């Protein structure tokens, strides 16, 4: 019996590891579709950003209640997973609670602490479900939150509730078995939370209890492994991606737009200015100006899209969205991720006749952006939707000359009058006249 369980466990572990590996490769490939960008400078500031924002959840605390609940789930997730380590050893070696004899009463304390976290995760997830589905916090119900994103969010919460319940029920049935002196069931001491559930199991036969305990054990570990794989398909990827994403985040002032060096060279040629470096070298291949599709964005923008947890904090702060415009920064991130996944899955890849701009994101959306950076500021994992919007605008302006007519007129004013309005450059200093006359 044991050996079958062991073999089965190893098989399951192998399958989960394989699926996970494949998905990680897939996501890596997706991110690598993006253009190069150097984000390796200033590593101390980068570590700090990661520690504060990803590990320390700094940005979450702009709104304390969800932040606190989220913190419970997050700490619970990290810490309870330490227990998974024991699960895996037990599963492979056919042991049961292998650490219990070594740790003695400390094991009891440790497990009681894990149980405390399980209960907090349970409660937090229940409140999250209520916020989403009963209180209906507005940011969870915008047009981009279609069937799958909404289902995904709810599934995860239900999943976590089931997993934490399994831990508690497993521990309770285990303690009932210990009380009956069942062989193999090492004494764990009285575990703080699950001991309250022991009466549920007290009157059952040892054989029934073993089946139940095994069921909960398997449910929990299968759940964890399934969860790990599921996460890579879901918005929940942020539990891993938040770390690299905050490490590689933009460290420059938010107002700064990245310079397009390919344009700099052309402008220098036009103005007759000396080029930097070797002027006789053939010019580097100039790709598209701006972004039409995901491969025109930097890898960081694509990483952003995989990190996005669809929380909608950005959209809730967006002035355009608040005033009924079509733009939603969250939708920009979701569209980008959808496009990357479609490109990777489709047979024709990027050449499928579609593109990010047009098929996934409309001009109306990006034309509504005021570049106010409220979305960037709001994002708890330092995602930058604005840089995608601005790259798309660059493409529209420079490759299609398709900017709104009023902008084209503004461009023309700058070209001819050196001001965005139609005023003669010779009148520029007229304001001083009345001051001299006072």
């Amino acid at each position, binding site marked *: 019996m044991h050996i079958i369980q062991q073999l089965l466990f190893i098989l399951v572990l192998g399958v989960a590891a394989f699926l996970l590996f494949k998905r990680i490769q897939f996501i890596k490939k997706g991110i690598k579709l993006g253009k190069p960008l150097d984000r390796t400078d200033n590593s101390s500031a980068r570590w700090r950003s990661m520690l504060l924002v990803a590990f320390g959840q700094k940005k979450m605390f702009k709104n304390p209640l969800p932040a606190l609940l989220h913190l419970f789930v997050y700490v619970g997730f990290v810490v309870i997973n330490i227990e998974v380590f024991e699960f895996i050893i037990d599963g492979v070696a056919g042991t049961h609670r292998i650490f219990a004899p070594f740790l003695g009463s400390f094991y009891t304390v440790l497990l009681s602490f894990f149980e405390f976290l399980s209960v907090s995760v349970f409660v937090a997830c229940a409140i999250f479900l209520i916020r989403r589905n009963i209180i209906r916090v507005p940011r969870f119900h915008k047009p981009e939150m279609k069937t799958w994103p909404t289902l995904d969010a709810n599934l995860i919460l239900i999943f976590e509730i089931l997993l934490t319940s399994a831990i508690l029920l497993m521990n309770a049935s285990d303690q009932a078995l210990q009380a009956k002196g069942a062989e193999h069931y090492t004494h764990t001491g009285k575990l703080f939370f699950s001991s309250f559930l022991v009466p549920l199991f007290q009157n059952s036969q040892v054989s029934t209890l073993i089946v139940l305990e095994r069921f909960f054990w398997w449910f929990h570990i299968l759940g964890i492994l399934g969860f790990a794989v599921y996460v890579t398909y879901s918005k929940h990827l942020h539990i891993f991606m938040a770390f690299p994403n905050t490490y590689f985040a933009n460290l420059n002032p938010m107002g700064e737009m990245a310079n397009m060096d390919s*344009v700099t060279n052309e402008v220098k040629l036009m103005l007759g200015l000396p080029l930097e470096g070797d002027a006789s070298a053939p010019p580097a291949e100039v790709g598209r100006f701006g972004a039409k599709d995901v491969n025109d964005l930097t890898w960081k923008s694509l990483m952003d899209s995989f990190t996005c947890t669809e929380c909608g904090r950005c959209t809730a702060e967006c002035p355009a969205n608040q005033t009924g415009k079509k733009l939603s920064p969250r939708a920009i991130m979701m569209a980008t991720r959808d496009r990357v996944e479609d490109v990777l899955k489709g047979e024709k890849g990027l050449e499928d006749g579609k593109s990010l701009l047009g098929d996934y994101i409309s001009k109306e959306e990006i034309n509504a952006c005021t570049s106010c950076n409220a979305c960037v500021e709001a994002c708890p994992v330092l995602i930058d939707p604005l840089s995608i919007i601005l790259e798309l605008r660059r493409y529209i302006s420079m490759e299609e000359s398709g900017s709104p007519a009023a902008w084209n007129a503004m461009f023309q004013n700058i070209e001819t009058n050196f001001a965005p309005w139609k005023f003669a450059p010779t009148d520029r200093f007229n304001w001083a006249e009345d001051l001299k006359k006072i």
Partner: protein
Amino acid sequence: MSTYNIPTMAEMAAKGESPEILFWVGCAGSFDDRYKSVTKAFVKILNKVGVSFAVLGQEESCTGDPARRAGNEFLFQMQAMSNIQVFEGYNVKKIVTACPHCFNTLKNEYPALGGNYEVIHHSTFLQQLIDEGKVKPADGQAFKGQKITYHDSCYLGRANNVYEAPRRVLEALDTELVEMKRCKTNGLCCGAGGAQMFKDSEPGTKEINVERTEEALETGAKIIASACPFCLTMLSDGVKAKEKEEEVKVYDLAELIAQAEDL
């Protein structure tokens, strides 16, 4: 009758002098009828404290910011590079401007094209003058105890982390500064950034400037202070849309200081 000294860089160069600061007026500062009074107010302050400054006059030209935000990188870089050439010609080291968009572009974006200067927004500059005691706006008590609310410009606040200087300037006026519901890092945009100033807004249910103005009016302040030409326009329009232009005024920091100093 008082006259003010407004030297240009060219005039100073002709005399073999170079000013301590270049006052970058910006397009709105040069052409916008309402906002020109901010330029004048700032020049009066500069004259009063006797700072050695000059302007570019007709040699000034758009920084290129709206072109860049609207996607036209070529035009932006053309503007930037010719401006940098002008700066180089006059050996400019330090620039002060009242426009957060010019400020952001000159400070953060010109370096990538070879233009490195110390760039200061006028809110910070005014705060320095107050700290140094060169401007003592509370003396006249023009605004003592008046409720004023301050609207954060996105390009000053979130974009460049300048939140305190404008508030310190207002406090120096001995006003009662009341904050809007969304302020500082959470401040709501006026709706004009990202080149929106130069086109109609996309279809929606409301204008952003009206949303923001409503929030400003909720504070009960009779003066809305701003530190950006676009915000000033958008909020003034918002106040008009709410038919409150008789009771509620929108002013730039420089105008408030100039009024307090009776300039």
